[in-house]
């Protein structure tokens, strides 16, 4: 063969015997781009001409299949003229007709249509959150009236996972937050000789806001994401379908124990975070010459049972929001590992967003109620 090393070429020629597709050159994954001659064709070739064809690998049949698929007038028989092995490969590839309506259609997204799509998606998302919350409430109702069941062992494991096992990270973050608050506060307050009021600042900030919000954010990254990932992989593996067909209600069995565990644990974690955060503030104040006794005495004038229960009260709602976002995203995850990853990301975004939104609503409500 003379053209052993020449670049791959495909040219269409109109000859006496009809339309001929001439293939020549060496077709390799590493070779240069295909030279196409003779333009686009709308007719199936009447014969092939391959006397100049060198070695080829899968790029040639792939190219051929691509071109033949584009042609509108199809024939069931492949024209003669291909080398035997190539002929056999092409017959295999063309053997099962393409399911054209199975192809995923990619509509060109114009500005307006993508806006419309985004709106419908957003609306559907709101709908699914509302529906999921409703289902959860129903499920809770069944639980209270004793008509639903989950395995108590599962519940204890989840409780442990989102309680005790979260203590170290909550402790670390809260300690640092308390210390940062004290440092920042001290710089400002020392200007007025009011260093002692660091105790008020740290105490109020922790019990009203920072304790609950920081714990919630830690828990959405930690536990909410874990809920989404574990329920997501269960749904990808059809385990949730299997629960359904054995007469288990997936809500009662999977969502409810997670929700209950988080709603129970969040207030406790928040109290813990408050204490550690205030302790961190006290340490900093101590190094800046405010003795702990004085700090403590000042702290007691600032916080009282009412304002120190605000954060704990909010944390219950944050816990519910995290559990619902995590479980919702997990349950409606598609059936692949990519979908599980997406579900995890979405659950974290959704729970942090809802925490911030809830917190602002509480801030407004507490201001109006003057607490």
């Amino acid at each position, binding site marked *: 063969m003379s053209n052993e090393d020449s670049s791959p070429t495909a040219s269409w020629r109109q000859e006496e015997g009809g339309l001929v597709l001439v293939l020549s050159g060496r077709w390799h994954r590493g070779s240069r781009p295909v030279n196409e001659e003779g333009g686009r064709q709308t007719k199936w070739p009447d014969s092939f001409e391959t006397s100049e064809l060198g070695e080829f690998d899968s790029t040639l049949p792939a190219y051929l299949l691509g071109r033949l698929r584009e042609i509108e007038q199809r024939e069931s028989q492949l024209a003669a003229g291909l080398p035997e092995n190539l002929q056999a490969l092409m017959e295999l590839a063309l053997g099962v007709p393409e399911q054209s*309506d199975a192809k995923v259609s990619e509509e060109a997204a114009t500005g307006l249509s993508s806006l419309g799509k985004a709106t419908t998606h957003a609306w559907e998302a709101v709908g699914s959150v509302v529906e999921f919350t409703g289902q959860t409430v129903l499920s809770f109702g069944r639980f209270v009236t004793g008509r639903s*069941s989950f*395995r108590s062992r599962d519940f204890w494991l989840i409780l442990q996972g989102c309680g005790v096992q979260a203590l170290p990270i909550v402790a670390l973050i809260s300690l640092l937050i308390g210390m940062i608050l004290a440092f920042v506060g001290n710089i400002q307050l020392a200007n007025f000789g009011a260093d002692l009021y660091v105790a008020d600042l740290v105490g109020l900030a922790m019990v009203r806001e920072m304790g609950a919000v920081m714990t919630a954010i830690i828990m959405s990254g930690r536990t909410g994401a874990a809920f989404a990932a574990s329920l997501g992989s*269960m749904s990808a593996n059809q*385990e949730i379908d*299997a629960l359904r067909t054995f*007469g*288990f209600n997936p809500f009662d069995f999977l969502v409810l124990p997670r929700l209950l565990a988080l709603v129970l644990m969040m207030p406790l974690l928040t109290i813990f975070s408050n204490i550690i955060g205030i302790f961190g503030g006290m340490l900093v104040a101590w190094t800046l010459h405010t003795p702990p006794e004085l700090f403590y005495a000042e702290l007691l004038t600032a916080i009282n049972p009412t304002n120190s229960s605000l954060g704990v009260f909010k944390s219950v709602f944050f816990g519910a929001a995290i559990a619902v976002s995590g479980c919702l995203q997990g349950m409606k995850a598609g059936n692949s590992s990519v979908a599980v990853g997406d579900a995890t990301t979405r659950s974290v975004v959704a729970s942090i967003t809802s925490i911030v939104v809830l917190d602002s609503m509480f801030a407004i409500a507490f201001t109006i109620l003057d607490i």
Partner: protein
Amino acid sequence: MAKVSVRDLTMAFGSYVVMRDLNFDISERDIFVIMGGSGCGKSTLLRHLIGLKEPASGRVLYDGEDFTSAEPDQRERFIRRFGVMYQSGALWTSLTLAENIALPIEQHTELPAKDVRELAVYKLALVGLSGYEDYYPAQVSGGMNKRAGIARAMALDPDILFLDEPSAGLDPLSSRRLDELILQLRDTLGSTVVVVTHELASIFAIANNSIFLNTVTRTQSATGDPKWLRDHSDNSMVREFLNRGATP
């Protein structure tokens, strides 16, 4: 009266119609095979039969009662009588094999823990998994997962057993044992069995009724006893399928 009746069933994902106008009956104690090329909608049909997917149109009836339009509570009653094995096994990965089988038994009976365990061990033994009771699904092979899935489907001695490609991925001996098990279940418990399978040897050994789904026409091509269809079906594609591509 037919155990399961399917009337004018059309299955679709959005606007993509998988199969249309399916009509067939499954009688009590039938071993009914769903056949067809890969990707033609066999698993999807199974999901319609057990209520995991809603028909685009048409109905599924059990003992003449409408399952498709039943209220959730009523549906629950039907579903209690099913045992299902999924194509992927779908064992609960956080539970051991024995616990996988025990869970439905605990949920639906009042048996003491010891008896539940005994039942689970027995069901695993039936599928040749004695000794693997305390392994987790991730610790056993694909074929073993599948067999454990079959054991779980049989956990509650179901009235109707649905198996999605139970013998795919099994060695010839295990797959032979499985055929015997299915026949035994029918004969001793009187179960009706609906199986998706491509395995011709197994189809001719156990099935007495079948449906053939055609990928090209997107509807059923034949129903009836596969042994009879092999030689006498008026559809050449069905005959070809049942003769492994050789045209008789």
